[in-house]
C-alpha cells in the first residue's frame, strides 16, 4: 500500500476558534513528520499562517488558502496528490473532506482517502446512523424518542422512566430544553417546548453520570489499543472541553475501566476506523451501566491531550497506520526500543483545566454547560491529585495561586454557584469548603464524585494547618514537605504562614524559598516515559514533583543549555503565534549546537512536543518553578521574548536573582512595560503619545477630560465584570462604566487616555541588535484605531500609507531601539492621522504578528532575533520590505456563535480567538482569501445594511453603490435607507427588531433573505441599543456573515465585486 503513495495532501483546520484550536497544529505537524519520514511529498492547505505546520521543512508545499471544498478542489486539480488525510484538521477538514467525497471530487482526480474511510466518518457524524450502527453490536446509546404532541411525550416518558430531559428540535441556544422529574413537570415543560418547535425529543436523563473518554487506535490488521482513558471531574452535562479532566481515570475500578475499554475496541472495529478515534461514555456512578455519548472518528482535542498526557504520539502513529503500517511494526518513540503496540502506563496524574476568557465579551452568559466556551487549556502533571490541580489552577493564568489562597473572590449565592456551574466553579468549591460545607453537601449540589471533593478538602485542611504557624522556623519540615507534596507554592505558604500581604509577599516568598532550600526541600525531576520506569527510556519529557527523592536525569552543568519560556494557556490575545516563535527559537538554539530547553504547559502546542527540543519541562511558568529549573540547568541564558507576556512579566524578578537573560536588558523591558517610565522616555525623545493620566477619583477624571475631551479610553486596574478596557463618549457612559463594571479609588486607579478617532493604526515588527535595527516590517490596519490590533485586519506590506509616515515611523522606532538598547524582537504600534504620528504601545518581545510578517517576507525574523540574542553570527537581510510584489492580509476569526448572548461587536479589548494570513497578487485577492478563510462568504442575493454614524455612512457609500451596480438587493434600516436614497441608491426599508412591521431585520436574517449583514454600532461604547444587538446576534445565530466595521465592510465589498472567486489564483507560498 505504501509504495504507490508518493504525494499526500493534508487539510489543516484553519484559524483557531473555540472548539478547534492549537491541538490541530500539533496533530497536523506530527502527521506531516510521519509522512516525510517515509519520503512522501507533502502538500498542506491551511490559511493559519501562525502555525508551526505551515513552516518550511514541515510540509513540502504550503497553500495559505481557505479549507473549503472549492479551494481544496482547485488545489487537488493542480497538485494531483495520490492520497489525502482528512482526520488531522479537526471538524473543518473532516467536513470539507466529506463534502468533496459526496461530490465525487476524490474519485474524479483519483485521490485515495488514507486511513479511516469516509463512509465510516459519516456513520459517526450522523446521529441516526451512529445510533443504528452501535445498535448492531448491542452497544448502548442514550435512549431518545422524537414526539410531536404532549400526549406522545408523556407516553415516551413512561417508556424511558423519569427523570427525563426534553429538547426542542431545531432551536438555538437550548431554548425549550430542561429536566423533568415527574408527569406534571413534563406536561408544563413540553407545552412550553412546543411553542418553540413542532417536534421535541424526550431523552433519558443521565444527569450526574460520570463522563469518561477513551482514545482508541486500530491498524489495518485489526490490532487495537486504547492509549489513554480520561475522566471528567464534572459529571455529564458539562462539555468535556469545559470540564477539568484527569488522566488516567481515578474513580473507576478495574472492571469498569476494562468494560469500557473492551467496548471501545468493539466500536472501533465495527465502525472500521484505521487510525485513531475517541469514544465518550456516560457511566452510572451507582452501577456499571453506561451509554456511549459520542465517537469522534478523527484526531481531536482529547487525542492531543492524551498524547501529551502519556507521551504516546497519537497523530504520528495514526498517520503511519493510514499508510498501511501495523502497530506492531512501529516503535515507541519515547523508549525507541519497545513497540508502539502497547498501552502507556502512567506513574503520575495529569489534570487538564480549561481557560475561559468570558470577561472579554459583552453580554455573554457565564454558565458552563453542554457547549464549549473555553478558549484554551492547560495540563498539569503531578504525583498527587492535589499537586496537579494546584499547579493547574496557577497555570490557567487568571491570577490564582492554587485551589486555595486566592483573594477577591466572592460568591453571592454559593449554593446556586455550585448547582449551576459557571467558569468559577472550582473556586466556588473552595469557598464552600471554607464556609464549612461538607463533602456530602457539595456532592449533592455538584454531583462531582466525592473522591475529587475529598482531595480538594484535603487542600483546605492543609491550608488551615499552615495558618497555625507564623514563621518558617516554627513550621516543621514534615508539614512544609507535606504542603509542597500537595501542590502548595512558596507564595501560598508565604501567605498562610508568614501572613504576608501585597508588596511584602514577593519578599516573603523568597524567604520561604531560601528556608526550604536550606532544609533540603526541593522538587525532583521525573521523566514521562510511557512505561512507568519498566524499561529504560532516553526521554527528555520531564516534570517536577515533590513526591520524589531522586532526579531521573543528571545535569551536565556545561553552560550549553538555553532555556526558552513558552506562552502558557491559549487565551484571547496570546495563542499559536507565540508557539511558532518559541519553536523557532528552540530550532535556532539547536542549530547552533546548544541545548534547547523548553518550559511550557499547554497541551495544544507544538512547543510541548518532546521531539522539538533537547529537554522539555512540562511545568509551570511561575517564578518559583522557573527558578527551580534554572537552579538545575545552570543555563547559559534564558530567552523570555518568545512566549508573549507571561515570560516578559518575569524579567525583573529573574534578573534580580542573577539569572542571565538573553537579549534586551531586563531594565529596558521594565522601562517599556511601566507606563510612567515609558512616557517620560518618550517625552525625553520628543516622541508623541496620546495624552493620558493615572487617576484616582471622579473629580480628577472629569478635570482631565475637560482638557482632552471625549471620547476617552478607560483602563481600570480593578474590574468587576465585563471588559477591562472601554471607550466612553460622554459623561453618562463614563459614570455607567466606572460604577457598574469597574471601580475607581485610591487603591484602584484608572488610566484615562485621549482617544483619537479616525486615525490609521500602523505597526512595526522589528529585530534590533545592540540598539540598532537589523530588520523590520511595517504593516497597516484596515480598520481605524479603536479596533484592537488583535481583532483588526492587517495588511503587509502597507498599501495606503504616506512615504512620509513610513519615514517618521522608522525614525521613531530607531530612536526607541537605541534608547532601550534592544537586542531581539520588538513591536511598536502607532496612530497616524495625516503625518502626525503617536506611539500607543511598545512591546520588547515577539509580537502576535511576527509569524505573519516573517512568512510573507519569507525572512524568519525569530530565527534572526534568536541569533542576535544568542550572540552568534547573523546576517542582516538584504531585501527591502517594499520589494514585495504581492500582498499579505491577516484576518481575525471570531467565535461568537459559540458564545451564547455575547454581542459580536468589536472594541478596544480583543475578542477574536484566532487568525489567518493569506497571500495574493493584489490586496483584493489577499483580503478575500483571508476573509473566506475565517468564514465569510460572497453574498449572492441581498445585503442588509445599518450603517451607524454619519462618518461610517459616508465611508460605506461608494461600496453600496457598487453593490447596487452588481445587482444586489439592498435592505437598510430607516436612517441608512434615507441616506442612501438621498445619494440616489434605491434600498428597501428593513424595520427594526422591536417594530411589528415587515420586512423586519431579524426576519430577513432568519429566513435567509439576506446573505450579508453590515451593522455598524452607533458609537464606540458598550451600551448598545438592543435593536442593533438583536440584528448582530441574529446574524451570528443564523450563520449569516456579519461585518461591524465600515472600513472593513467597504474593503470586502470592493474586493468581492472586483475579483470573482473563480478568478483567484491558486498559488503555493513558494510561488510568490
Amino acid at each position: 500500500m505504501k509504495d504507490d503513495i508518493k504525494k499526500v495532501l493534508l487539510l489543516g483546520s484553519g484559524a483557531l476558534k473555540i472548539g478547534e484550536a492549537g491541538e490541530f497544529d500539533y496533530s497536523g505537524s506530527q502527521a506531516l513528520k510521519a509522512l516525510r519520514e517515509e519520503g512522501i511529498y507533502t502538500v498542506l492547505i491551511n490559511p493559519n499562517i501562525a502555525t508551526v505546520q505551515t513552516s518550511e521543512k514541515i510540509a513540502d508545499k504550503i497553500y495559505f488558502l481557505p479549507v473549503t471544498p472549492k479551494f481544496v478542489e482547485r488545489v487537488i486539480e493542480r497538485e494531483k496528490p495520490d492520497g489525502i488525510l482528512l482526520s488531522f484538521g479537526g471538524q473543518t477538514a473532516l467536513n470539507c473532506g466529506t463534502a468533496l467525497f459526496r461530490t465525487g471530487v476524490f474519485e474524479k482526480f483519483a485521490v485515495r482517502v488514507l486511513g479511516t474511510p469516509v463512509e465510516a466518518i459519516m456513520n459517526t457524524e450522523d446521529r441516526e446512523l451512529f445510533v443504528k450502527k452501535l445498535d448492531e453490536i448491542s452497544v448502548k446509546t442514550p435512549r431518545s424518542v422524537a414526539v410531536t404532541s404532549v400526549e406522545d411525550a408523556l407516553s415516551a416518558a413512561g417508556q424511558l422512566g423519569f427523570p427525563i430531559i426534553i429538547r426542542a428540535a431545531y432551536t438555538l441556544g437550548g431554548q425549550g430544553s430542561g429536566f423533568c422529574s415527574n408527569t406534571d413537570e413534563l406536561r408544563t415543560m413540553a407545552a412550553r417546548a412546543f411553542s418553540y418547535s413542532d417536534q421535541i425529543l424526550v431523552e433519558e436523563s443521565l444527569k450526574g453520570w460520570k463522563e469518561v473518554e477513551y482514545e482508541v487506535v486500530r491498524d489495518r490488521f485489526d490490532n487495537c489499543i486504547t492509549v489513554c482513558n480520561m475522566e471528567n471531574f464534572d459529571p455529564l452535562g458539562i462539555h468535556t472541553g469545559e470540564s477539568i479532566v484527569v488522566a488516567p481515570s481515578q474513580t473507576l475500578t478495574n472492571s469498569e475501566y476494562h468494560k469500557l475499554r473492551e467496548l471501545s475496541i468493539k466500536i472501533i472495529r465495527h465502525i472500521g476506523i484505521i487510525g485513531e478515534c475517541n469514544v465518550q461514555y456516560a457511566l452510572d456512578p451507582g452501577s456499571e451501566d453506561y451509554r456511549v455519548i459520542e465517537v469522534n472518528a478523527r484526531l481531536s482535542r482529547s487525542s492531543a491531550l492524551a498524547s501529551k498526557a502519556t507521551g504516546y504520539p497519537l497523530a504520528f502513529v495514526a498517520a503511519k497506520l493510514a499508510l498501511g503500517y501495523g502497530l506492531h511494526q512501529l516503535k515507541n518513540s519515547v523508549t525507541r526500543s519497545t513497540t508502539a503496540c502497547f498501552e502507556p502506563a502512567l506513574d503520575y496524574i495529569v489534570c487538564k483545566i480549561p481557560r475561559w476568557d468570558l470577561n472579554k465579551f459583552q453580554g455573554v452568559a457565564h454558565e458552563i454547560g453542554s457547549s464549549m466556551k473555553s478558549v484554551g487549556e492547560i495540563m498539569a502533571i503531578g504525583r498527587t491529585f492535589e499537586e496537579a490541580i494546584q499547579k493547574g489552577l496557577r497555570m490557567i493564568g487568571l491570577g490564582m495561586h492554587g485551589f486555595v489562597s486566592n483573594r477577591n473572590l466572592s460568591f453571592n449565592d454559593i449554593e446556586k454557584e455550585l448547582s449551576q456551574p459557571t467558569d468559577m466553579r472550582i473556586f466556588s468549591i473552595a469557598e464552600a469548603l471554607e464556609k464549612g460545607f461538607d463533602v456530602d453537601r457539595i456532592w449533592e449540589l455538584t454531583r462531582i464524585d466525592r473522591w475529587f471533593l475529598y482531595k480538594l478538602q484535603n487542600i483546605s485542611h492543609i491550608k488551615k494547618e499552615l495558618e497555625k504557624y507564623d514563621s518558617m522556623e516554627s513550621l516543621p519540615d514534615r508539614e512544609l514537605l507535606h504542603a509542597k507534596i500537595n501542590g502548595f507554592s512558596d507564595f501560598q505558604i508565604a501567605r498562610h504562614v508568614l501572613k504576608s500581604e501585597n508588596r511584602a509577599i514577593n519578599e516573603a516568598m523568597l524567604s520561604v524559598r531560601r528556608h526550604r532550600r536550606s532544609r533540603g526541600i526541593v522538587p525532583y525531576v521525573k521523566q514521562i516515559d510511557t512505561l512507568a520506569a519498566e524499561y529504560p527510556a532516553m526521554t527528555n519529557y520531564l516534570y517536577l514533583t515533590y513526591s520524589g527523592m531522586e532526579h531521573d536525569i543528571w545535569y551536565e552543568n556545561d553552560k550549553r543549555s538555553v532555556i526558552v519560556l513558552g506562552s502558557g494557556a491559549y487565551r484571547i490575545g496570546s495563542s499559536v503565534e507565540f508557539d511558532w516563535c518559541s519553536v523557532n527559537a528552540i530550532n535556532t538554539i539547536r542549530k547552533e549546537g546548544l541545548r534547547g530547553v523548553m518550559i511550557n504547559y499547554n497541551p495544544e502546542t507544538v512547543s510541548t512536543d518532546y521531539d522539538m527540543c533537547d529537554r522539555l519541562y512540562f511545568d509551570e511558568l511561575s517564578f518559583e518553578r522557573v527558578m527551580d529549573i534554572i537552579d538545575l540547568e545552570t543555563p547559559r541564558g534564558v530567552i523570555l521574548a518568545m512566549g508573549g507576556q507571561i515570560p516578559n512579566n518575569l524579567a525583573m524578578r529573574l534578573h534580580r536573582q542573577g539569572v542571565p537573560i538573553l537579549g534586551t536588558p531586563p531594565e529596558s523591558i521594565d522601562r517599556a512595560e511601566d507606563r510612567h517610565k515609558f512616557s517620560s522616555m518618550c517625552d525625553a525623545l520628543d516622541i508623541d503619545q496620546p495624552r493620558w493620566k493615572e487617576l484616582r477619583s471622579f473629580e480628577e477624571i472629569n478635570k482631565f477630560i475637560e482638557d482632552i475631551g471625549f471620547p476617552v479610553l478607560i483602563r481600570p486596574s480593578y474590574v468587576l465584570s465585563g471588559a477591562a478596557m472601554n471607550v466612553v463618549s460622554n459623561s453618562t457612559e463614563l459614570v455607567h462604566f466606572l460604577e457598574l463594571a469597574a471601580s475607581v479609588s485610591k487603591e484602584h486607579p484608572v488610566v484615562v487616555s485621549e482617544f483619537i478617532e479616525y486615525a490609521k493604526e500602523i505597526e512595526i515588527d522589528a529585530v534590533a541588535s545592540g540598539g540598532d535595527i537589523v530588520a523590520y516590517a511595517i504593516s497597516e490596519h484596515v480598520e481605524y484605531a479603536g479596533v484592537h490590533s488583535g481583532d483588526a485586519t492587517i495588511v503587509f506590506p502597507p498599501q495606503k500609507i504616506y512615504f512620509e509616515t513610513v519615514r517618521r515611523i522608522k525614525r521613531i522606532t530607531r530612536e526607541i531601539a537605541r534608547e532601550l538598547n534592544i537586542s531581539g524582537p520588538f513591536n511598536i504600534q502607532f496612530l497616524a492621522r495625516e503625518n502626525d504620528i503617536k506611539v500607543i504601545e511598545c512591546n520588547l518581545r515577539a509580537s502576535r504578528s511576527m509569524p505573519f510578517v516573517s512568512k510573507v517576507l519569507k525572512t524568519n525574523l525569530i530565527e534572526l532575533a534568536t541569533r542576535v540574542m544568542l550572540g552568534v553570527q547573523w546576517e542582516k537581510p538584504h531585501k527591502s520590505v517594499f520589494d514585495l510584489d504581492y500582498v499579505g492580509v491577516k484576518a481575525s476569526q471570531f467565535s461568537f456563535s459559540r458564545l451564547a448572548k455575547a454581542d459580536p461587536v468589536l472594541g478596544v479589548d480583543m475578542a477574536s480567538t484566532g487568525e489567518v494570513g493569506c497571500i495574493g497578487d493584489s490586496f483584493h485577492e489577499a483580503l478575500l482569501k483571508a476573509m473566506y478563510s475565517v468564514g465569510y462568504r460572497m453574498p449572492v442575493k441581498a445585503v442588509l445594511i445599518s450603517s451607524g454614524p454619519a462618518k461610517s455612512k459616508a465611508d460605506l457609500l461608494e461600496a453600496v453603490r457598487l453593490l447596487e451596480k452588481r445587482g444586489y438587493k439592498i435592505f437598510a434600516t430607516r436612517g441608512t435607507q434615507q441616506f442612501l436614497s438621498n445619494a440616489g441608491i434605491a434600498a428597501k426599508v428593513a424595520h427594526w427588531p422591536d417594530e411589528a412591521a415587515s420586512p423586519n431585520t431579524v426576519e430577513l436574517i432568519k429566513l435567509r433573505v439576506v446573505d450579508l449583514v453590515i451593522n455598524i454600532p452607533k458609537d464606540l461604547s458598550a451600551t448598545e441599543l438592543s435593536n442593533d444587538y438583536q440584528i448582530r446576534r441574529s446574524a451570528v445565530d443564523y450563520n449569516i456573515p456579519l461585518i461591524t466595521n465600515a472600513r472593513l465592510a467597504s474593503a470586502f465589498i470592493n474586493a468581492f465585486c472586483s475579483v470573482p472567486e473563480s478568478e483567484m489564483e491558486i498559488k503555493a507560498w513558494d510561488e510568490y
Partner: protein
Amino acid sequence: MRNNDRLSVRLTLEDGTVYRGWSFGAPVAAAGEVVFNTAMTGYPESLTDPSYRGQILCLTYPLVGNYGAPGKSEQDDLYMFYESSGVHISALIVSDYSFEFSHWNAIESLDEWLRRSNVPGIFGIDTRALTKRIREKGAMLGKVEPEGMTTDFYDPNKVNLVAEVSTSARKVYGNGKYRILLVDCGVKFNIIRNLLKRDTTIIRVPWDYDYSVEEYDGLFLTNGPGDPKMCRAAIDNIRKSLDDDRPIFGICLGNQLMALAAGADTYKLRYGHRSHNQPVQMVGTDRAYITSQNHGFAVNNNTLPAGWVPLFVNVNDNTNEGMKHVSRPFFSTQFHPEASGGPTDTDFLFDLFIENIERAGGSRH
C-alpha cells in the same frame, strides 16, 4: 489522616538501600521479594492474586485506594470482586495513599482491608525511584519495618509457594456440558468464571493431585506463584497427560509447568512482567494483543522440544508468551487471558480451548 499522626516505616532492600515512608494497613513488619506492577487500576485484583504470594508489591501508579475495597459478595461459590479468598501479598508499597475513597462497590477502605488481613502498607515512598532500582538490579528481597519493629529477609523463591496457595481439597463448580479438570496452583477466580461462562463443570484439584482417576474432557493448568521447578508432582502428572489426546490449556505458571513437562527449560527473569500493557504477537501472524501479566519466570524458547512451537512472543523483549503442540490440542500462554485486572483482548483463547474439546470428541460424560 492528620500528617503528624503518622507512623514511620522503613523499607530495606537486600542491597542495603533504605526508603522511608508512612504506615497504612496493618502496623506490622513483613519480608519478601520486592516486585513492581505498572497497572493503573485493579489493586483489589492484584492483592488477591495468589501469584503474588511471598511478594512485597510496589504499585508504580502513585494514587492508590481511591475506590476503596470491595466486599466478599459471592456468586457461583466465588467471591465476585476477589481473585481468591483473601490478600496474598506480603506488603504493599505506594506513593500516595488515598485515605478517603468513593465507590458504590466499596465496603471499606484499602487501609481497613489491609489491617483486617494483617498486611502492612507503606505510602510516601518514591515508587519510581524504587522501580528503577529493581529494574537495574533485578527483583530483590526486601523487608518492611514500622518504627520500633524488625524482621529478617525472607526468600519466597526457596519455598514451595504453590503448596501454600493451592486448594486443599477437590471441589466442583458448575454443572455444564464440558468437564474441565483444573489443576489449582493458585488459581485466579476469573479463570473459573471464564470457564463457567462456557458451559463447563470444573473439578478443581490440589496442585499435586493425581487426577488420572478423574473423568474429564479438558485439562486446565492454572497460574500460581514462584519457581515452577518447585512443582515436581504437578510436572510429573502433566507429563503423563501429554501422552493423552485430551486438550490442555495452561496459563502463566501453567505454561511453565507444561513446558517443563514437555522437556523445555524455564529461567528467572531479571525483574519479571507485571502490568496490564504487555504486547504479545501471535507467531507467524500480524496479530498483536495487549495482555495482563504477572510472572517472574519464563520459558526458554530455545529449549522447546520437537513438536512444540512458540504460540506468542513478547513484542518488547521477544520472551516466550505461550506455546503449542504442532499436532495435538495443547496450548498455553504466559499472559493472562482471563485478565482481572487488565485487558480482556485474549479471552477468545477460552473459546479456543472449548473448540479443541469439541473437536477432540466433545463432552464424553
